[in-house]
Structures are given as C-alpha cells and as structure tokens.
C-alpha cells in the first residue's frame, strides 16, 4: 500500500506539476498586480482628494462586501452575457484576485502611510520635494516596514484563494488532485500532498516576514 501510494504520487507528478504551475502562475501574477495596484491605491487615498476618495471607497467596499467567488462568476459568466466580452478563465482569475488583492494591500499601505507622523510630510515639503519625491524618498520607505508583515499575510491569502479558480474551469493543482482521486480513490494521499504543497509555498513567506520584522526592529 505504502509503496503503491508513493508510486501513484510518482507517476502523477507530471500531471500535478502542470496544475501546480497554473496555481503558482495565477498566484504570483495576482500578487505582483496587487502590490503595484495596492501602492497606487494607498498613495491616492492619502492625497486628500474628495472625489478620488469616494471612487476608491466604492471600489474597496465592493471587494470587501462581495465574495471573491461571486466576482469570478460575475466576470467569467456575466461579461459574455451582458457585454459579449469573454476572458479566458486563467486571466479572469488573475484579474479578480488582483483587484481583490489590491484593495487589501491598498488598505495596508494607506494605514501605514497614515500612521507616519505628520511632521515627516511637512519636513519633506519644506525642503521643496514634489509629491512623487516625497512619497518615493520619505514616506513609502518608512511605511514599508510597517506594511510588510500584513502585506505578506495578504499574499498567502491570495495563494490560498487562487484555488477558487477551479470553479470557473481553471485546471489548477487542486483540480488535478481531484481528477486523480476520482480515478484512484486515494483521497488521503492526494489531499496530504496538496496540504504539503500549500504549506511549503505559504510558510516560507510567513517566515520571511518574521525575519524582516526582526531585522528592522534592530535597525
């Protein structure tokens, strides 16, 4: 049994690998877009423009209030029906996870910028810095320390939530696992392997965030 289990894993490896590649591509693309979008969102929220704040608040609340799964269905099945526009399931998943992730990272960035003493902004302005210089040289580098641990937390949630992409037809690592189970009934073995897969992707991230936190606490 044990040897046949290992054998099964071994022969399934290419198939599982393909699924894992899907999961990882969706996750890392979404993480990259979330980070860029989140920083833009966070900075825009601290510019104190009323109109801009209203638009961004609406965006934030939409992604807070509506489950990611509903967004996936809305864009994947809704866009073709209402706008005749269809997106491949892979990119639909990246789009939804990025928009959701950007709202989460964005709130972290906004909070981190907001928590800096107001004098930092005033001192920067007083030596004639432009807004991009003020954020680039003074505010964001200081905010980085405060925002890294919670941002990495968002990253691990993005990786885990990417599994919802199965429901719009993406063949990710979980889908592949289910296919193997349907064929072989080895559910404990396969789910165990999936558990280890997600654990070894997410745990190093948390560990890295802890190391960074400690290093910055000393500096």
């Amino acid at each position, binding site marked *: 049994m044990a040897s046949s289990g290992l054998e099964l894993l071994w022969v399934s490896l290419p198939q599982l690998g393909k699924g894992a590649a899907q999961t990882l591509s969706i996750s890392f693309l979404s993480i990259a877009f979330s980070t860029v979008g989140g920083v833009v969102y966070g900075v825009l929220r601290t510019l104190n423009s009323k109109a801009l704040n209203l638009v961004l608040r609406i965006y934030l609340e939409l992604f807070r209030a509506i489950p990611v799964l509903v967004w996936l269905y809305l864009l994947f099945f809704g866009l073709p029906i209402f706008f005749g526009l269809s997106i491949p399931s892979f990119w639909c998943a990246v789009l939804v996870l990025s928009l959701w992730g950007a709202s989460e990272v964005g709130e972290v960035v906004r909070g981190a910028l907001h928590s800096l003493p107001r004098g930092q902004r005033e001192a*920067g302005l007083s*030596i*004639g810095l432009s807004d991009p210089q003020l954020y680039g040289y*003074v505010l964001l580098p200081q905010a980085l320390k405060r925002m890294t641990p919670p941002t990495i937390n968002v990253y691990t949630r993005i990786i885990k939530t990417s599994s919802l992409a199965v429901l719009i037809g993406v063949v990710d690592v979980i889908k592949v696992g289910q296919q193997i189970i349907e064929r072989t009934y080895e559910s404990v073995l396969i789910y165990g392997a999936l558990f280890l897969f997600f654990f070894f992707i997410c745990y190093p991230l948390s560990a890295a965030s802890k190391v960074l936190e400690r290093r910055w606490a000393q500096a």
Partner: protein
Amino acid sequence: MSALIEFQGFNKYFGDQQVLKGIDLSVQSGEVVVILGPSGCGKSTLLRCLNGLEVAHSGSLRFAGKELLDKATDWRQVRQDVGMVFQSYHLFPHMSVLDNILLGPLKVQKREPREARAQAEKLLERVGLSDKRDAYPRQLSGGQQQRIAIVRSLCMNPQVMLFDEVTAALDPEMVKEVLEVIQGLARDGMTLLIVTHEMAFARAVADRVVFMEAGRILEQNTPEAFFTNPQTARAQQFLEKFSFVSTLPKRTKELELL
C-alpha cells in the same frame, strides 16, 4: 528699500474660526524678528503660511517681490528660499545625517554632489557635529537632532529661516547649543523669523519683537522697549507671567519650626 517679506491685511481661517486677523508685518532682508505671544495666538500659523504648509485666505503676502496668494505660486520654488525648522525636528529616521541634509540639494536643486557634500560638511562642522555625518537620527540627542535639522534647511541656501518653537521639546541643557547656532546665523546677517518662549533669548537676538494675541499683532517694538516698557496691558500681563517664577515669595522659616 523694499521688504523681503510683507504681510498686508492678511487673514487665515480654520473652518469658521479666523486665526489670523488683518496681519500687517514687513521684514527687511537681514532682520531678526522674534514673534511672542500666548499659545494659540496664531504665531506658528503665521510662519506656516510663509512656506505654504497652511493656505492663506485673503489679504496679501509678498516674498522677494512675489505675491504668494496668487494661485500660480510655485510653492516648491518658494520653499527652497524659505527654510523651516520645527519643534520636533522631523529628521527622516531612515536616512543617515548626511542623506538627510543632502536630499534637498541633490534631488530638488539637482546640485553637483561633490559641491553639495562639501557645503554639508562645512555646515556640520559649524554646528559641531562633523563626527555624526554617518549616524542615524535615533542615535542622536534632541539637541543634536535639532542642529542637524537646522543644517538640513541651511544647506538649501534659503533667503530666510523660520524657527517654530525649536527649543520647546528639548531638555534645558540642550537648549543652549541650539540657541547658539541660531545666534550665529543672526550675527552673519541671515534673515530670521523666530517663534519662541525663551524670553531671554528673544531679548538677546531680536532686532524687533512682535507681540501677538488672538490672531492679531498687538505690538511691535525693539526688544529693549518691549521688555522694559510694553505698550499694551496684554503684553504686560504676558511678561509678568514669565517673571512669575523668579518673583515667587520664599518659604518662611517659621514653617520649619512647627
């Protein structure tokens, strides 16, 4: 001779509350003006209007011949000519002393790095902190941080320096080292606008004292005239409060006998 800084009928509101009321004040180039007055009288706000950290509402404020209340005012340009030092220093904690000082000269003024660095070193030497050029702000005392903050402003070669209660957050023994630096600037003929609660310092350094209360200028005079013979009852009261401690009645011996 036209003034470097000229407020005329200058007004400023926070919401419905008017915090500066019809301010008329002109400062000549090379003059040292100390602004005194009780907390909340608008003296800090007055300074902050000069470099655009606060928005003015009406009246006129001219700096080096330009009207600053114009919508088209290029505040980044003005701020390079108007140095400002704050009560809590506000050094950038993630940068070394030298990087703090050079950020403006290199990134805003786009100066030649070697030339800017030479000036920074010279200024550091002047305030006695050459050995701290690679230190980080958290490794410095309050007085040292404040002297660095002054150098950071000076290295932009401003036409005027604004000091907003720069010794109010310092331990008494560090006040002196900061005041000495400011006094040196005054001696060199730099134009200074100083908000402070250090009365003895005001008297020593000022060419002119401006007394404010509730958003108005009540009195302007030479330091000697202001401190020995204030013209308004409010200024007299204000000065009496500062001499209160030195005129406290001593404890009598009888209490000890009981």
